[in-house]
């Protein structure tokens, strides 16, 4: 075999062996092509975080929370936040909801959206797709999505309130800073019932600290329910060898008849 042909042949073998689909299957277990690998061939998740051609950190990937932060957003408070600064009405409501007595009224129990930031910390992976000017996040949980515009656009003062709000992002060195507002105030910030209002503004700071690990600092600024902004920290692991599946919650939701509610 002439040398160039042999090189192409090897390139083909290599690319199919590493990148190509391993036979007919769906994408539950498909190794990502460009994962740095250790000597034994396993993914080296402690390798440096990759960068895109423009020099920005590459946040692309399938990520999954290391714990169910959606259960209790205050599970890991930032060192600057000593406790959740509830307003009295919000504390009273959170205490009433906290024992599960109002669980039927929690929007996700009715297959309504988790809201932001609860969605990223809900069980199940999410996929970040980074393009110039726009980052799209697809969440397996309830098959929801967010658009984070990084093209410099400004959000209008008056927007129609929504469950997941309107997001814009900018870079602070290697950290992606996402500001979201325009919420409808219907979401519980977590399953134990911390309330939100239409005044909620959420800041998420995404930092890929190495190949396989992403940290997120989340600041809740909701003067309608809290006396001052407060911040939590969440951690996400890369899932280098799987992908998202559809999850349509409202297909057969039988729980409402069994969950407790204050209206019983």
């Amino acid at each position, binding site marked *: 075999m002439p040398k160039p042909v042999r090189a192409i042949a090897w390139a083909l073998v290599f690319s199919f062996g590493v990148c190509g689909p391993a036979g007919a299957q769906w994408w539950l277990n498909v190794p990502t092509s460009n994962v740095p690998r250790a000597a034994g061939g396993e993914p080296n998740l402690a390798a440096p975080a990759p960068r895109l051609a423009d020099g920005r950190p590459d946040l692309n990937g399938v990520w999954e929370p290391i714990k169910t932060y959606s259960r209790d957003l205050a599970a890991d408070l930032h060192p600057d936040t000593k406790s959740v600064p509830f307003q009295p009405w919000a504390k009273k409501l959170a205490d009433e909801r906290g024992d599960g007595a109002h669980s039927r009224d929690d929007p996700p129990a009715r297959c309504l959206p988790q809201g932001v930031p609860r969605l990223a910390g809900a069980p199940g992976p999410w996929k970040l797709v980074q393009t110039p000017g726009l980052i799209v996040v697809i969440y397996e949980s309830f098959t929801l999505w967010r658009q984070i515009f990084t093209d410099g656009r400004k959000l209008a003062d008056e927007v129609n309130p929504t469950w997941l709000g309107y997001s814009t992002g900018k870079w602070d060195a290697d950290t992606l800073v996402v500001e979201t507002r325009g919420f409808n105030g219907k979401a519980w910030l977590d399953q134990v019932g911390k309330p939100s209002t239409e005044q909620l503004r959420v800041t998420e700071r995404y930092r890929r600290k190495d190949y396989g690990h992403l940290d997120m600092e989340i600041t809740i600024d909701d003067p309608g329910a809290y006396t001052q902004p407060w911040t939590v920290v969440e951690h996400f692991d890369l*899932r280098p060898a799987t992908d998202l599946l559809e999850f349509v919650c409202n297909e057969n939701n039988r729980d409402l008849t069994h969950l407790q509610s204050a209206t019983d």
Partner: protein
Amino acid sequence: MKTSTALASLTLTLLAAGLPVQAHHSFAAQYDAAKPITLTGKVTKVEWTNPHIYIYMDVPDEKTGSAVNWALEMGGPNALIRLGWTRNSLKPDDLITVEGSLAKDGSHLANAKSIVMTATGKKMLAGSSGGTGGTGGGAEER
């Protein structure tokens, strides 16, 4: 049984991945972790649906001997698929033993943690939101 063997090895592989299960509601508001229950009987129906898979089974009542139909809530299809299940893993007339937690409302409903197939003895985790299912059932909203 070929399928079951394949399932068991898949289960082990995927358990190692430690993917959390999906739960969209509070476990504690619906089930009582302090009331474990073990049910043995025959599968009558499988609802392979979101947000939870339901298995219905006839369990002989200890006193009367007549069958009582129980509903078992499990994780959603994605959680179970990642634990190695397929939609054909359980079929009507299969004999199974289920370990789980009783519903608080007193109905014939339980949250399944694991299922043992009588025919093969294979144990499969049920992706329960309240389960203690090792690494496969780690994260939960309860």
